[in-house]
């Protein structure tokens, strides 16, 4: 069999050098630290490991963390697409201000966001007092915090796609007799789906690891409102490094497979555009 040629002819040289550097960089920055988690975990016996990660309190935190992160990412996809749509399609006074506000959750220290949200949603807070159900110190509050910090991802992923969207496609759809709903579902959604999925994956991943904003609004009641990152922190504070990394390792593996799945989904939706 002929030797497979990886290198494509290019006018810019440096394939070997840049690939080598990339590998080194990613290894040092991502792969090595993550490997340390598994190395550290390996210092435990298998029985200890199983006992740590199947402890009811830990399992409950996994459920809460993944559940709230998933819910927050779903909310962000729906409203992120809506915000991106409004920002791209309409012009109105204050548009630039809103456009700028979208990025704020990135810039704000997450602890500040957590405190602000807690004050608002506490039972006596500005918003909390009007609600008949509790928000702060419940999973709902956690979801709100996670939605807040993940908002920019979907908006910023979908916005450029909508900007480049060929509006003649919409006109073609209308002239062929499609109503507005059909045009949106059959023509616009497929176009923005890959970008929305990327935004979803990013918002989801970000929400999984979020600590600062959640600890304030969560209330941190064991079995009820304790997120996995908090549990890891608790273990660390008790100098139980192996226990902390064990919980982290499980979380890492689950996250890896979830992101792999989302990537697969993306690849599947993207396949159709492969030649464009």
């Amino acid at each position, binding site marked *: 069999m002929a030797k497979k040629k990886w290198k494509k002819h290019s006018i810019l040289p440096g394939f070997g050098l840049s690939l080598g550097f990339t590998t080194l960089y990613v290894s040092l920055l991502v792969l090595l630290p993550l490997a340390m988690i598994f190395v550290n975990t390996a210092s435990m016996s298998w029985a200890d490991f199983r006992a740590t990660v199947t402890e009811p309190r830990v399992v409950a935190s996994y459920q809460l963390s993944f559940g709230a992160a998933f819910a927050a990412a779903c909310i962000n996809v729906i409203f992120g697409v809506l915000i991106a749509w409004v920002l791209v399609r309409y012009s109105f006074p204050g548009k630039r201000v809103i456009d700028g506000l979208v990025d704020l959750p990135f810039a704000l220290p997450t602890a500040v966001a957590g405190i602000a949200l807690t004050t608002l949603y506490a039972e006596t807070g500005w918003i909390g007092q009007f609600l008949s159900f509790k928000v702060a110190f419940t999973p709902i509050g956690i979801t709100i915090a996670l939605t807040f910090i993940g908002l920019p991802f979907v908006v910023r992923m979908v916005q450029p796609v909508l900007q480049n969207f060929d509006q*003649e*496609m919409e006109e073609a759809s209308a*002239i*062929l*007799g499609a*109503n507005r709903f059909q045009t949106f579902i059959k023509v616009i959604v497929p*176009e923005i789906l890959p970008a929305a999925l990327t935004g979803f994956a990013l918002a989801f991943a970000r929400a999984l690891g979020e600590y600062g904003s959640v600890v304030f609004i969560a209330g941190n009641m064991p079995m009820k409102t304790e997120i996995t990152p908090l549990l890891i922190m608790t273990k660390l504070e008790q100098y139980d490094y192996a226990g902390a990394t064990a919980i982290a390792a499980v979380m890492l593996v689950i996250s890896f497979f979830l992101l792999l799945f989302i990537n697969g989904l993306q690849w599947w939706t993207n396949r*159709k555009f492969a030649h*464009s």
Partner: protein
Amino acid sequence: MSIQIKEVSKTFGSFQALSDINLDIQTGELVALLGPSGSGKTSLLRIIAGLEESDNGAILFGNEEITHIRATERKVGFVFQHYALFKHMTVFDNVAYGLKVRPKKERPSKKDITEKVRELLSLVKLDAFADRYPAQLSGGQRQRVALARALAVEPKVLLLDEPFGALDAKVRKELRRWLRRLHDDFHITSIFVTHDQEEALDVADRIVVMNEGKIEQIGSPEEVYEHPNSPFVYDFLGNVNVFHGRLENGQWRNGAGGENHGSLAYVRPHDILIERKKPADDAVQAKVVHVHVVGRTVHIELKQERTDQFLEAELTKERYRELNIKVGENVFVRPNQLKVFIPEDYSI
């Protein structure tokens, strides 16, 4: 279906895109809207399609007024310059789209849709490409898909917005012929927008020449080419030489001065005769500046000795060989046929 356009005007901000357009199109006609960019031809087409709303005036399809009916319900076929195909759908799904989005009661069965799409794809000679995506097709193929998609809903009116503008010359010519044949077979009332005079002359039954939001002239290709009613139309439909001259006793004289001096004579390059010897009094001496051969015709650039004006002439290859003209030589030119416009009536 016949189309009537009555007193249609449109402004975009302070720009008057269309002013008081009146146009009647007969059932089964193939009409070209011809004009330079910014002449309002595309705006007019989009208003007919319902993609744009006119400021005032009315549009009738047959006897039915459709001015305020939405594009969705006008049941026209529209072909965009840049195809506007649905990128994420196969060729088959693109063509089937108009049938699939119909309300349940009017929607044909799956089998009927498949049959209809196959039929249209064979009409545009793309049977083998049904499962491809638009990105995998060439420009000409994409435009044929767009045409099949527009025809799938069996429109009474077909509107084409510079349909061949984005294609290369050879494909453009092919599709032009093909559109003409298609029209001869189906007799759908069709309007197409173009800025290419050759395309309009070649394909259309009738040409509507537009300029600055107004209709300059309406007529058959021969009419507008042979008898343009204004300097603009003359200039727009092909190359032209302008002679400055004067009118004397109903006779046009070359050269400035005298009464009615300022009148202009328009002559097509192929109506300019070149002679070696001075044939008549009205012949003008000119120097050959440049000669270039394009296929069977020879374009010759000349400079009038007296006025320093440049002229363009077209000769057949035979005549060119006979005269044996070389760059730098002096020859005599004489217009075979000219059209005089007096500036009081027209301004360019």
